[in-house]
C-alpha cells in the first residue's frame, strides 16, 4: 500500500496526463485554490469593507471620517434598536417553536406511511418551493379582514364574533408573520428530522410494540431521545435563518403596524436605503453578524463533530 499525502492507494501506478509531474497534494491545490479564491473575493473582501465602514462616520452628507465606536454607541442608545431586538427575538422564538412542533408531527407521520410515500413527501415540500416574499403575500391575503379565508372560517365556526384586523394590531401582526414565516420553514425542518428518524434502528420500535408501548410512549422514549441531534440541528438552523431573513415580514406587514413587526433587517435596510447612514448600517450589520456567529458556532461545532466520525 502506498500513501501519498494521506490519500490511500492500494497500489502504485504511473500517473499520466498533462499534470503528471504534479504531486497529489499540489494537484489538490490546483483544483481547489481557484474556488477558495472565489470565496475570498466574495466573502472576505466585503466583510473587510463592512468592518471598516462600521467604524466610519459615513452618512453620505458629511465627509467620511474615522468615528471610532460612535456608530455602535448610537445604535445601542437608539430606542428603535432595542425595539427591533425585542421583535427579532419574539419572531425568531415563535417561528422556531411553531415550525418545530409541526415538523415533529409531520416527520413522524411521514416516516410511518409506506404507500405513496414519495408523493406525500413531495407535497410536504411545497411550501419550500414558494419564494418567501410570495408566502408573505399569500398569508396577507388569507388574513385580510374583509375577504380573507382565515377570518371567514373563524367567523363561521364562531370562534371570533367580529373580523380581526391583524394589520391594525401589533401583537396580532406578529402572530401573523410568525405563521407565514414558519410555514416556509417547516419543510426543511421536517426533512432534517425525517432523515434522523430513518437512521433509528427499526427493531427498537418492534421491541417496544411487543412490550405493549403505545405510540406516545414510543415517541417519548425512543423517537425523541434517539433523534435529539437531528432535532437540535433543525432548531439551530431555523433559529439562524429566522433571525436573519425578513422577506415574509417585508411583503406582509413591512415592519408595521406601529413597528410591531420591525426586526433587525428593517433597521439595517432603513439605514441603507432611507437614511443613507452607512456607518450605522455597518455597525448594525456587525452586531447581527456577531449574534449569529455565537448561535452558529454551536452548529458548526456539531457539524464538524459529525464529519469527523
Amino acid at each position, binding site marked *: 500500500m502506498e500513501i501519498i499525502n494521506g490519500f*490511500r492507494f492500494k497500489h502504485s501506478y504511473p500517473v499520466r496526463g498533462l499534470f503528471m509531474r504534479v504531486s497529489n497534494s499540489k494537484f489538490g491545490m490546483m483544483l481547489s485554490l481557484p474556488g477558495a479564491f472565489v470565496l475570498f473575493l466574495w466573502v472576505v473582501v466585503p466583510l473587510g469593507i463592512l468592518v471598516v465602514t462600521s467604524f466610519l462616520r459615513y452618512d453620505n452628507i458629511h465627509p467620511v471620517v474615522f468615528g471610532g465606536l460612535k456608530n455602535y454607541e448610537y445604535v445601542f442608545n437608539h430606542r428603535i434598536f432595542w425595539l427591533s431586538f425585542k421583535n427579532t427575538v419574539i419572531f425568531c422564538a415563535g417561528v422556531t417553536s411553531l415550525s418545530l412542533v409541526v415538523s415533529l408531527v409531520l416527520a413522524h407521520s411521514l416516516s410511518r406511511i409506506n404507500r405513496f410515500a414519495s408523493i406525500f413527501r413531495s407535497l410536504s415540500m411545497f411550501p419550500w418551493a414558494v419564494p418567501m416574499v410570495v408566502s408573505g403575500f*399569500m398569508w396577507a391575503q388569507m388574513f385580510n379582514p374583509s375577504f380573507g379565508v382565515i377570518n*371567514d372560517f373563524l367567523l363561521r365556526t364562531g370562534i371570533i364574533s367580529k373580523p380581526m384586523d391583524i394589520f391594525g394590531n401589533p401583537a396580532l401582526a406578529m402572530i401573523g408573520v410568525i405563521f407565514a414565516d414558519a410555514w416556509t420553514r417547516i419543510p426543511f425542518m421536517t426533512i432534517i428530522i425525517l432523515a434522523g428518524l430513518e437512521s433509528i434502528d427499526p427493531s427498537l420500535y418492534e421491541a417496544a410494540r411487543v412490550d405493549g408501548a403505545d405510540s406516545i410512549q414510543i415517541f417519548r422514549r425512543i423517537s425523541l431521545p434517539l433523534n435529539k441531534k437531528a432535532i437540535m440541528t433543525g432548531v439551530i438552523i431555523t433559529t439562524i*435563518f429566522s433571525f436573519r431573513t425578513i422577506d415574509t415580514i417585508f411583503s406582509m406587514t413591512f415592519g408595521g403596524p406601529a413597528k410591531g413587526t420591525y426586526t433587525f433587517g428593517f433597521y439595517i435596510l432603513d439605514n441603507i436605503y432611507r437614511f443613507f447612514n452607512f456607518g450605522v448600517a455597518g455597525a448594525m450589520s456587525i452586531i447581527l453578524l456577531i449574534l*449569529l456567529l455565537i448561535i452558529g458556532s454551536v452548529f458548526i461545532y456539531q457539524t464538524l463533530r459529525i464529519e469527523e466520525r
Partner: protein
Amino acid sequence: MVLSVLLFIILIPIGWTLLTSLKSLKEAFQTPPTYFPDKLTLEAYRKVLTETPVPRYVLNSLIYALATAAFVLSAGTFAAYGLSKYPYRGSNTILISFLVTRILPPLSLLLPFYMIFRYFGMIDTKISVIVFTIYLSYPLAVWILKSFFDTYPTDLMEAGLIDGCSRIGVLFRIVLPGVASGIAAVAIITFLWTWQEFLAPYLFLNSDLHKPITVGVYYFVGDELTYWNTISAAAMLASVPGILFFLIAQKYIVKGLTSGGVKE
C-alpha cells in the same frame, strides 16, 4: 389520517392562492369570500402574461438562476473535488472557512455589496444581482458537492488511474458521471435559491428591465388597491419552478439538503 389532515392544512395557502388566481377581480374582493370561484376564469393569467411586464420578470429570474447555477457549479465542482479527494496541508482550514461563511447573515453583507456596486457604477445592472446570488449559494454548494465526492469510492478512481487515465480524466470520465445526481441536486438547489431571492434585487435594482419575478410581484401592489387576483396569478407563476422541481426530483434535492444542507 393525521398526515392527510396536516398536509391539507399546510397546502391551504397555495390552494387558496390558486383559487384566487382563478377568480375575477370583483369576486376576489367579495365579503364574505367564496371558497370555490363562482365563475372560473383565466382572466388574471391572461392579464398578467399579456398586459404586464411579468413575462420579462420571469425571463430575468431565469437568467439570474441559470447564470448563478452555472458559475457556482463550474467553480465549485473543482474546488469540492480537490478538497475531498486530494487533501493538502491547509485544505481543512479552507473547508472550515466554507462552513463558517455559511452562517454569515447575507443581510449583513448587503451593505458592503451595495457600496461596492455603487463605487463601480453597477447599481441597476443584472451583474450586481448575479454577483450577490453567487455569494449566497456558493459556499453551501461547495459543501454539499464535497459531501457527495466524499461518498464516492476511491477504489473506482484508482481503477481508472491504473488503466491509464489522467487524474483530470478520472474526474470527468468516472467520478462526475458517478455523482451526476448529486450535481443535479446542487444545480437545482442553487437555481431555486436564486429564483427565490428578494432583498438583493430589491435593493440593487430600480428599473423594470432587470427585475426578477420576486420583486416584480410588487407591480400589483397599488397605493390604494392591491389586485389580489392578478397578484395571485403572479405568485403562482413565481412558485411553479419550485413545485415542478419538487415533483420531479424531490429525492435528490432532499438528499443534497440533508447531506450538508441548509436552506435560506
